[in-house]
């Protein structure tokens, strides 16, 4: 991307214009997320910067929205629900998704495209349709308004992410390794745990993180099939924005941003480690 020495004036102008455009777009991507952080420390119940805040007057800042978050039993219940639902749906989807990815990565798997299509369909079908279908069907089989119902629904929505990430790990997987192990007298079980597992672990973990965030961030389905007892953080935020909008939502948002930064770094580290392990140069 560096400018060559022989660049013409026009090219130079264009080069810097282009960089400016890119900076602006990066700003568009990231500022809306960062702007929430200072706003969540607003001493006033407004969604904008007060003159005191602009003047960096400490009186303009306060942590009261965080206090109201930590002292509100509804928010605490929402945190608990979100964690329980995300945890269990991650366990289910990671387990089933990893098994399926192992199967799908075998050569000559029959009807591979069709089956793959069905398995990842929960990711493609708009959430509103999944939610509608699940609402009708879960009502019929008595799963509406239960934790189990929401967990199963979220697990279904999350498996495609596990299947895709683990399959991606396995595409670079050198099958001669398992054959070599077999040749050297290793039992299939032994081979699986000594060769396959270490190689796919980063993929499985990042799939699990994807699954976790899918459930943790999901709101449409839980709105449709959950009841108040399954109220999750995004649900509470959704109804908070619609009904009584208070900066507590911004405090929650800031905490969630911190949380997603941690998850993001975990996934990135895993991805890079995985690429290094498999000898693929990272991009």
């Amino acid at each position, binding site marked *: *991307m560096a400018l060559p020495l022989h660049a013409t004036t026009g*090219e130079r102008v264009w080069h810097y214009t282009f960089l400016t455009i*890119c900076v602006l*777009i*990066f700003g*568009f*991507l*990231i500022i*809306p*997320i960062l*702007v*929430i952080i200072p706003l969540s420390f607003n001493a006033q119940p*407004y*969604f*904008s*910067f007060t003159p005191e805040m602009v003047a960096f007057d400490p009186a303009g800042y306060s942590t009261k929205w965080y206090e109201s978050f930590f002292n509100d039993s509804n928010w605490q219940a929402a945190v608990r629900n979100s964690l329980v639902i995300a945890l269990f749906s991650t366990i*289910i989807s990671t387990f*089933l998704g990893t098994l399926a990815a*192992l*199967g799908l990565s*075998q050569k*000559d798997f*029959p009807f591979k*495209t069709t*089956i*793959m*299509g*069905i398995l*990842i*369909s929960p990711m*493609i*079908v*708009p959430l*509103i*349709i999944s939610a*509608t*279908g*699940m609402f009708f*069907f*879960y009502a019929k089989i008595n799963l509406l308004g239960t934790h189990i119902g929401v967990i199963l629904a979220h*697990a*279904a929505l999350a498996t495609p*992410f596990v299947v895709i990430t683990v399959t*991606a790990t396995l595409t670079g997987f050198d099958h001669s390794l398992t054959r070599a192990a077999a040749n050297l007298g290793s039992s299939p079980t032994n081979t699986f745990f000594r060769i396959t597992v270490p190689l796919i672990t980063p993929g499985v973990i990042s799939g699990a993180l*994807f699954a976790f965030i899918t459930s943790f*961030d999901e*709101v449409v389905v839980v709105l*449709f099939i959950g009841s108040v007892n399954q109220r999750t*953080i*995004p649900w509470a*935020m959704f109804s908070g*924005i*619609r009904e009584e909008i208070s900066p507590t939502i911004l405090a929650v*948002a800031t905490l*969630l941003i911190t949380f997603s*930064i941690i*998850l993001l770094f975990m996934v*990135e580290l895993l*991805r890079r480690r995985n690429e290094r392990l498999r000898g693929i140069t990272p*991009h």
Partner: protein
Amino acid sequence: MSQSDTSTLKTADGISLKLSLQRSLRRKKRNALLLVAPLFLFILITFIIPIAYMLVRSVDNQIFAEILPTTAPLLAKWDPLSGNTPDEEVFKAFITDGKVAAQAKTINRLGKRLNYEKSGISSLFRKTGRNLRKLEPEKLTTSYKEALIKIDKKWGQVDTWEILHRESGKYTKSYFLSAVDMKYDANGMQWKDDDSRIYLNLFKRTLWLSFLITFLTVLLGYPIAYLLATLKTSTSNLLIILVLLPFWTSLLVRTSSWIALLQKEGVINDFLFAIGLITDEGRLAMIHNQTGTVIAMTHILLPFMILPLFSVMKTINPSYVRAARSMGATSFTAFRRVYFPNTIAGIGAGGILVFILSIGYYITPALVGGTQGTLISNFIAYHISGSLNWGLAAALGTILLLLVVALYILYDKIVGIDNMKLG
């Protein structure tokens, strides 16, 4: 190794190698299937069957035969074009069924269902049900027909019976007709009056806004993907965080931040006011309208465009462009004739992904869309929990699903679903 060679080779236990290989292959295949089976079943039960069930609900009309079991087959034989009300036996069946249903308090359920066809049937059924509960058919001095017409004169009108006749089957087209702004009347299927049309315009608006959002994500995503793909790896690894962070941040977080930014008393308006670009009255309305939906959704979906574009651009060999340049092309021509054509697949992949995601969006339009920026999904949600017209919700969902499936097939043709990548 030729085939004849293998056939003569034997394994240690004396089975031909070919057979043994075949066996082991079959075993492998079986094991592979066994590994996939649990997830397949899981998805089938928790996801595919619910969707199939929604499709069924969009045409389901069992309710008529359930509530009026003996009337339904008799009514089916009646010819509404005859101009006469049905025969006495239909009236008799209706009164008998209706009395049972009125006592079980289910008759009004049918009234509510048929009220979708014509306003007023709901109260007709309520009134009829109330009277039927008291009526003793054995003690009737008049014909059944007269008895029913005595309850309400609408039972003496062919129109009323025509609606019942039309909707007496196990399945109905009427939800789908409503979903495309059509209705039945005396002349068969018709467009609804202008002042009652909603959905076709809504589908049009949904498609148009999705297209606009897709276009904007290409416009904004292309330079970023290009920059990331051409920078040094260490730098691009750092910058890609700026794309991935929004991707990993909760949808609700991003939507609320746009509310904070765009609203009348929000950050942007306050800023413009502070620097004197707008007056206090002239604050811009950027939210609770289409602008709000488009801005927020473009931001939310932009990473879905950048990431596939970036992975396509990574594979383009920079020497192509260098070759074109060395042969005298200007940098613009080299880009246009050599680089850009190679990225079209990426635009297609990202474009369809963003398009599919946006036509089904619900949360963001619900929060920032106002009345002009809402999409078809907002109406599906409304019919589920607001109007309780579940059949119509299912029909709208089915149409949306068909649109998505068509796009999905297109996506598969362009990229192949097995090549889907994340982050």
